[in-house]
């Protein structure tokens, strides 16, 4: 359906990524935010506190990030589109209940404006080192969706995408911004509400008695209810059957985990968004995301000027990872160059999918600053001149 015009600030704005993200969430229909202050994400919550009172939203500043994530899941079950906003240290605390959200299949969005870690790290400075934590941070087998915007405009657009995906697949969706995107101010165009596609909270048409909360009816995603409508549902973080009842058996565990991971894996082509360019006849392909994808453009332009054939795959969806796309390219090119503001994360995924068919060259930056485009340019040259299948580190 189309966005509710009540919360949509149609027009051209000059916003930083944090504000744009807040506006995207409101346009998507988010009306609940529980959070705890943390740099560099706080401006999202601050914007929300200014905007929520007049659009019927609830902001509550909780006692910590553990409580924030728990409250977000509670609000999801009460029928609101809900979110929380944080950065690395808070993201670590949220892992417990991100697992609960995945297990209970509570639709929600977690924004992580990444700073450099580990621990307190560089609170006000950029990092992209929470990418693997986003995928694997909570214990046990589960799957989530994660997106990474590369501009304030995308922070607006894809905050909406995050909510839409969370409703469609009943899964926590992690919005992996980074400090530079969060604090960078650019033009953000908010279209009229009738041009914004929004997935509503869809409640089952079944009557109480016919409804089973975790019966996906042969599909991947069960229908949802909201508390207080008379369904008397039970939901738990324990391994559970279609009724939501705990079942302590390996058989029930297998069935549940297959569905929780399968609903993302088997729908990957519907979920994944990449921005690709110049892949035909490319010798080297740049794989990047977030702010790094923009910093790398200086290196790409320099290389093209010199006649090097550089293609690009820019990840908008990070998880699920575009395995097929990378595997397909690996057979045709000399190698991938993967700059990230970390010591190696998505590069491992690229290397895994390339499966030895071409080179993978990670270009690290350790946090606190974006790359010098020169090192990315050097990596293009290095890959072009390197041996056949060695991994260059």
């Amino acid at each position, binding site marked *: *359906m189309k966005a*509710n015009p*009540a919360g949509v600030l149609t027009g051209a704005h000059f916003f930083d990524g944090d504000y744009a993200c807040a506006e995207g969430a409101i346009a998507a*229909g988010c*009306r*609940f935010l*529980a959070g705890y202050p943390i740099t560099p994400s706080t401006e999202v919550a601050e914007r929300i506190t200014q905007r929520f*009172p*007049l*659009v*019927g939203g*609830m902001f*509550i500043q*909780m*006692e*910590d990030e*553990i*409580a*924030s994530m*728990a*409250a*977000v*899941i*509670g*609000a*999801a*079950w*009460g*029928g*609101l*589109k*809900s979110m929380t906003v944080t950065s690395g240290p808070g993201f670590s605390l949220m892992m*417990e*209940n991100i697992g*609960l959200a995945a297990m209970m299949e509570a639709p929600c969005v977690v924004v992580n404006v990444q700073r450099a870690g580990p621990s307190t790290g560089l609170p006000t400075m950029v990092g992209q080192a929470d990418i693997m934590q986003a995928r694997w941070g909570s214990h046990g087998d589960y799957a989530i969706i994660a997106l990474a915007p590369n501009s304030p405009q995308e922070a607006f657009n894809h905050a909406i995408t995050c909510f839409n995906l969370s409703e469609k697949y009943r899964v926590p969706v992690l919005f992996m911004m980074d400090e530079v995107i969060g604090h960078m101010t650019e033009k953000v165009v908010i279209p009229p509400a009738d041009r914004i596609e929004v997935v*509503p*909270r*869809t*409640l*089952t*048409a*079944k009557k109480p008695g016919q409804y089973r909360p975790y019966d996906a009816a042969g599909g991947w995603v069960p*229908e949802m209810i*909201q*508390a*207080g*409508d*008379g*369904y*008397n*549902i*039970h*939901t*738990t*973080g*324990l391994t559970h059957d279609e009724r939501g*009842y*705990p079942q302590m058996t390996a058989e029930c565990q297998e069935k549940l985990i297959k569905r929780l991971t399968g609903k993302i894996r088997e729908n990957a082509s519907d979920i994944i968004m990449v921005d690709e360019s110049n892949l035909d006849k490319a010798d080297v392909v740049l794989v990047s995301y977030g702010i790094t994808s923009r910093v790398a453009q200086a290196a790409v332009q320099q290389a093209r000027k010199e006649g090097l054939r550089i293609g690009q795959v820019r990840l908008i969806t990070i998880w699920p990872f575009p395995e097929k796309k990378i595997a397909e390219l690996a057979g045709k090119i000399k190698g991938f160059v993967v700059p990230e503001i970390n010591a190696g994360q998505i590069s491992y995924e690229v290397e895994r999918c390339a499966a030895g068919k071409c080179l993978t060259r990670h270009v690290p930056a350790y946090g606190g600053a974006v790359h010098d485009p020169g090192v990315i340019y050097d990596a293009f040259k290095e890959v072009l001149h390197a041996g056949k299948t060695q991994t260059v580190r």
Partner: protein
Amino acid sequence: MPEKPRPCGEEHPRSKLLRMDRIPHIWCPTCGIGTVVNCFLEALLATPLNLKKTVIVSGIGCTGRVAGYVNLDSFHTTHGRAIPFATGLYLSNPDLNVVVFSGDGDLSAIGGNHFIHAARRNQNLKVICVNNFIYGMTGGQMAPTTPVGAKTSTTPFGCFEHPFNLPHLAASSGATYVARWTSLHLRRLKWTIQEALSRRGFAFIEVIAPCSTVYARRNKLGTGFDLMKFYKENSVIRHGADTKDVDISFQGKIIVGKFVDVQKPTFLDQLNEGYSKVFGDKYVPYGSEKWHKMKSEFQVSAAKA
């Protein structure tokens, strides 16, 4: 697998509010939790509350399993997080009557921070804590409520830590209704739960309950019957007692009664009043009929989707 109990030809008097397909429950013989659940259900039946709008949230542990047996919308969450989950649930629909069932470890150790902050905000939640002085489900380890001197699996020579006085913790954090009974005080507990359900604000009811399997056995306190006799002989009813004075010592007197019952605006009352002052008529009071209409605009039925 334990055998299902043989049908006796009669329906359980509380079967409407229990998930009978999940009985038998996991609690040990002489455990106090079932008794507290029974009192809670009797209280529910005696209140005018709409049971469709009454939900139960629990964390982890023996008491955490209550949510699984009560036939209401029920949420079995993570360890210690029942209160923040319940906070989100309540704030997503203030028409809900949200009850939290928690054990002493769940509530006051791992969930202690959430407990005091929900009390501070006077969040409209009813919290029932079954305090058996121990972590039962994991095999009888020391809890923040274990009395000095009591033996547990992690204090084999006796507990040397000062325990929490939970009613005092709740009251001093801002709870507007605080009471304590033992699982022997059936009728009083039922009335208290009933009364707490009628109050707006953060209500806290502590129920001292026996754990014969891992607490009483290790401390040689006798059988389930002995434990009930102990409550009978050692409970002292003192309504309005200063919560400072209701500490519990090992096998000492247990002061019970209603300690606090005051009125104070809730989190939501404060918020609605504050925003109304700032924004006037432009502000739609959160939880009002008009607000519910706004909320429903973001929802569709699967039949239409």
